[in-house]
């Protein structure tokens, strides 16, 4: 095949676009305090933030799995207007500015919030500015990635497998656990990894709804932002860690993650 030549102008613009991605990465790697990296990594502020980030993002992913798979199952079954409404609701957090998400969470679960006031009056529970709030903020922002991936998997699933299982005498739960979920494993896996990556990087909703309390709500992205003023080396080291994790996810999932969306 012989295609039309690409004009120089397009090549230049594309190169500029690529530079916009490349230069910041280069900056991060070139300016990284390689000789101090280990010291920074073992710094209590860093390890605490890292530990908290891992805990919160994994918990958020676990919650997303428990709530998101059933949600995807309902979505995959619905049609027409109801489906559009449900879909818009579940995908909204993907396009919503995270800060707005944080504000919305505060208005719902804050001490004077819609549900939060009831929780506070009835049980004395306060959610905002706790680790639970950080987990909730991350779940809010990240769960749509899982729901979308699993719903796509369900829609492309050959339902005759489930029918074959039923004709062999398997009831609903056996079909679900022995046939449907195992067959959905690739979709669930890629959805969960995307969800976890998004939760790990969450900043806006978390700092709005959960605040910045070291050891309680200060996750790595928040620690990076704050350390940039006081201890730039620590900020760069933490950024590098997040970069390595993201790159590892990209390499590990290769074509699959975009295919699943």
């Amino acid at each position, binding site marked *: 095949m012989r295609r039309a030549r690409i004009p120089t102008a397009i090549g230049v613009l594309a190169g500029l676009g690529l530079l916009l991605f490349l230069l910041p990465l280069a900056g991060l790697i070139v300016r990284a305090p390689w000789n101090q990296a280990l010291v920074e990594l073992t710094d209590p502020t860093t390890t605490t933030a890292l530990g908290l980030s891992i805990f919160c993002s994994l918990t958020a992913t676990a919650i997303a799995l428990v709530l998101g798979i059933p949600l995807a199952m309902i979505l995959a079954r619905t049609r027409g207007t109801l489906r559009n409404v449900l879909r818009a609701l579940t995908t909204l957090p993907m396009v919503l500015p995270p800060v707005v998400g944080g504000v919305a969470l505060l208005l719902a679960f804050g001490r004077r919030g819609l549900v939060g006031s009831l929780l506070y009056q009835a049980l004395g529970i306060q959610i905002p500015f706790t680790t639970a709030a950080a987990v909730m903020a991350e779940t809010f922002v990240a769960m749509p990635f899982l729901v979308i991936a699993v719903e796509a998997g369900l829609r492309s699933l*050959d339902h*005759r*497998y489930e*029918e*074959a*299982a*039923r*004709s*062999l*005498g*398997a*009831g609903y739960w*056996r079909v679900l656990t*022995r*046939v449907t979920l*195992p*067959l959905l*494993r690739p979709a669930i896996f890629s959805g969960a990894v995307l969800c976890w990556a998004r939760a790990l990087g969450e900043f806006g909703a978390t700092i709005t709804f959960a605040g910045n309390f070291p050891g309680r709500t200060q996750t790595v992205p928040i620690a990076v932002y704050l350390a940039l003023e006081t201890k730039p080396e620590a900020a760069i080291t933490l950024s590098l860690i997040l970069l390595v994790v993201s790159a590892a996810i990209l390499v590990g999932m290769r074509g699959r993650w975009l295919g699943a969306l």
Partner: protein
Amino acid sequence: MTLEAAVRVRRNGFMLEVTLTAAAGETVAVLGPNGAGKTTLLRALAGLEDMEGRVVLDGEVLEDTAQGLFVPAERRHAGLVFQDHVLFPHLSVVDNVAFGLRAQGRTQAGAVARGWLDEAGLGDRADALPRELSGGQAQRVALLRALATEPKLLLLDEPLSSLDVSIRAEVRRELTRRLAAFSGVRVLVTHDPLEAMALADRLVVLEQGSVVQSGTPDEVTSRPRSRFVADLAGVNLVRGHARGDHIGLAGDASLAAADAGEGDVYAVIHPRAVALYRSRPDGSPRNVWHGQVESFDLQGDRVRVRVKGPVPLVAEVTRGGMRELGLSAGAGVWMVVKATEVSVYPA
């Protein structure tokens, strides 16, 4: 043990309406062209399709929409074999066969499944995954998976049609043997006459959602009641209104037949009984029509010639006869059929 079913399924302008009975030890083949509703019928019997009507198996009412009764698919004891095996891709062959046994809560399901595989000569493939099997092996495992649960009703959806011709005969032999050994009710749907003739004790011909004919394979092919059956029996079929010694056909044509009787009838003319001439034949045979050659079909040393005319017919001539006549597509030709060669039966 018998199956009695009256199934009605309506879907986007398509209407399936079938009454079907099948006794234990009998293989009933539902034969019909693609789109006739065969698979829908099978799925309705399995409890996988919304339907109206009634399905009774071995005295147990599986479905009676008039009374709001419905037994879900998983409690019907109906084994289903799909066109393309549909083995669970994430389970080994032995786990596939054991799946139904485990669902029934049977102990030692794995050992029982292995027994089935050993007996079928597939024991060495027990730990393989379905994607490692050949097409024929996969379809045989699918059959074992359905049989292992000891269903009362075995439903087969074109079990051979996705297989290569080279292995079809082998799988058909095994299928014949298995069906003979299976004591429940067997219903097979297919669009392949050969598959139906080889496996069925009784044929039910389904076209556009309704039964057009049923009976033993011989009964059905000797008295076709539809173009589909006539084609598979390789004969000409016309329908008309009989009046004594002739049959009035569509478009003012008339067909002379001995003892045609009275009323609406079918008439069958074997292609060998259709004689072809380039010029109008002498004498006064009663069935003479002029037409144009439409197409040829070689069958061994004989040629089937499709002729377009007032009564469109297929004639069978030898290759030699073909050369003598000098026939080519579009050529004009005279067709002659003796009245005694027309067999007539009521519509």
